[in-house]
């Protein structure tokens, strides 16, 4: 099981302790290429913290995170991003004062150094890519909105997903992407996620069980920082332990 090279992401014995409190405790998690994994669990289970650890926002106390065989725990955030990991935050994190176009353009993976920024040119490949992604995340009509802050909550979520798609990451991590969305928007997002997980691995944290059923290949249940169980959605849903900690109430 622990042959790292078979998986795009392999997490082993990962632990982080905040003043003695283990928010993530000896977690093992393996994600396949092109897999869409959903992580569920009650509030405070450590789901967000797990993503923080993978993307470098929080440093692990012990354990290892290997992405394509490369150890991530010692890398700086921007290096992790550049190696192909994209992260969407739980509350939409976009540049409210920039236009939708600029939000996407900023995420184009070129000109990421100081010098690169000073000499960056908005060439046709950038414009084309922005249009392509805007179409994908259903924001084509809002592309020239001068302030992305004016978008609806759901659209902001899509914009942030679009910003990640601009980077074309091999591993995409989404923290509660449908929070605050209408039923129709959830539908559209499910379609979107199924589409974008065709050629990359995706890790999604989600609460909405109907939504999870629509997208998940495999579900991991986290509880008190530990993996409670892992498997197909129907199996997980009927497991008495899971029902007790999570689905029951």
């Amino acid at each position, binding site marked *: 099981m622990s042959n790292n090279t078979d998986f795009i992401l392999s997490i082993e014995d990962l632990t982080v302790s905040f003043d003695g409190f283990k928010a993530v405790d000896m977690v093992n998690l393996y994600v396949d290429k092109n897999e869409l994994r959903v992580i569920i669990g009650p509030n405070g289970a450590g789901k967000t913290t797990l993503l923080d650890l993978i993307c470098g926002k929080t440093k692990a106390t012990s354990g290892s995170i290997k992405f394509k065989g490369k150890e991530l725990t010692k890398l700086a955030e921007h290096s992790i991003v550049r190696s192909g990991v994209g992260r969407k935050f739980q509350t939409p994190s976009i540049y409210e*004062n920039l236009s939708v176009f600029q939000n996407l353009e900023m995420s184009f993976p070129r000109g990421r150094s100081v010098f690169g920024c000073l000499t960056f040119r908005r060439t046709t490949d950038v414009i084309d890519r922005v249009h392509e992604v805007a179409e994908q995340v259903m924001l084509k009509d809002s592309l020239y909105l*001068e302030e992305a802050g004016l978008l609806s909550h759901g659209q902001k979520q899509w914009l942030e997903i679009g910003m990640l798609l601009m980077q074309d990451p091999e591993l995409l991590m989404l923290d509660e992407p449908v929070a605050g969305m209408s039923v129709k928007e959830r539908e559209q997002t499910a379609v979107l996620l199924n589409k974008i997980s065709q050629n990359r691995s995706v890790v999604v944290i989600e609460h909405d069980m109907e939504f999870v059923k629509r997208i998940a290949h495999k579900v991991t249940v986290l509880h008190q920082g530990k993996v409670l169980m892992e498997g197909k959605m129907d199996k997980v849903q009927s497991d008495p332990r899971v029902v007790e900690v999570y689905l029951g109430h």
Partner: protein
Amino acid sequence: MMKAMYQNMLGGRSGMIGLLILAAIIFLVLPLGLDLFRLNLVGKYLTYAFVAVSLVLLWGYGGILSLGQGIFFGLGGYCMAMFLKLEASDPESTKIQTTPGIPDFMDWNQLTALPWFWEPFHSLTFTLIAILAVPTLFAFIIGYAMFKRRVGGVYFAIITQVIALILTILIVGQQGYTGGVNGITDLKTLMGWDIRTDSAKYILYFINGALLIAVILVSRVILGSKFGMLMLAMRDKEERVRFSGYDVADFKIFVFCLAAMISAIGGAMFTLQVGFMSPTFVGIVPSIEMVIFAAVGGRMSLIGAVYGALLVNYGKTVFSESYPELWLFLMGGLFIAVVMFFPNGLAGIYDKYEKKLFTRKPRKGSASAMSSRTLSDPQPGPVRDAASPPAKGMGISNQPVN
């Protein structure tokens, strides 16, 4: 590419008008309307404008508040002063000293040889490089130490203050090497050219003005590039920028170094025009004053910062003559008033007024002013730099400067 760059530089129609008006004021109105004494005073204020412009980049766009820009203004000024002092201290004119050929204050402090770090300042080329390189390098060291460790906000502001304080104490304490509290005075010639003459004062004033305009143009190009957009993004959502693959610290270090270099040019021009440099321009109070210039002018407006520097200094000159003890309070009050009621300073007021006048776009929230200033959609567009002359009656152009 070149076309886009010119566009950024000129800042579109409105930016170009603003720049032309500023240039007309600096190069025509003031020289024609003021006597040399007052023009020289304006020239001095315009050297502070370099710092105010640097703070627009650093604070307005970068969101990094430095309360220690006097450090860099001072370092630039001291580098220039060291060269001029050495030239003024030739063995002939210092022959009454115990050790002829060294600056007078060294002689008074029983130094018998020129300290090693003064030696290279015999060369003008070295001095010119040092004026730009020394402050920039110093800023790089501070910036690297702070930003790589993610020190920011209030902590950074306080640290810059502490460094400004330490530097002042160091300069004052090391009298034999630095001229101490009096600074470096009695500067006379630059490569034999007497900088105290009327013609020299005019020429230096114009060089200063031209350099200031050049700095504004370069700043516009930078703000109009993706770099400017990134500054805004970083100020707003640093975390998101980091997770889009940018090393945020690098960008902060760069803009801090750039601001230091711009401030240093101002400092060097100060020394040339005023004829001395002293620790008074390095410490905490001048550093804070410079932030006020930028705030009053509008911290998002390069041109506004110049008017801010001119106006506040004009006020200072008028006021501190009649009520010197009240000035500091007045300035503090002014700062608070501007921050609370006019967060975009004079430029913000002008912007509003101009928009009403031309009824272009509908007004938006005050926080929105920045979006139109960087790469506009869909082609790279100009940095819109609102602000042209302040409202009638406030300008110094048609009033005597005391």
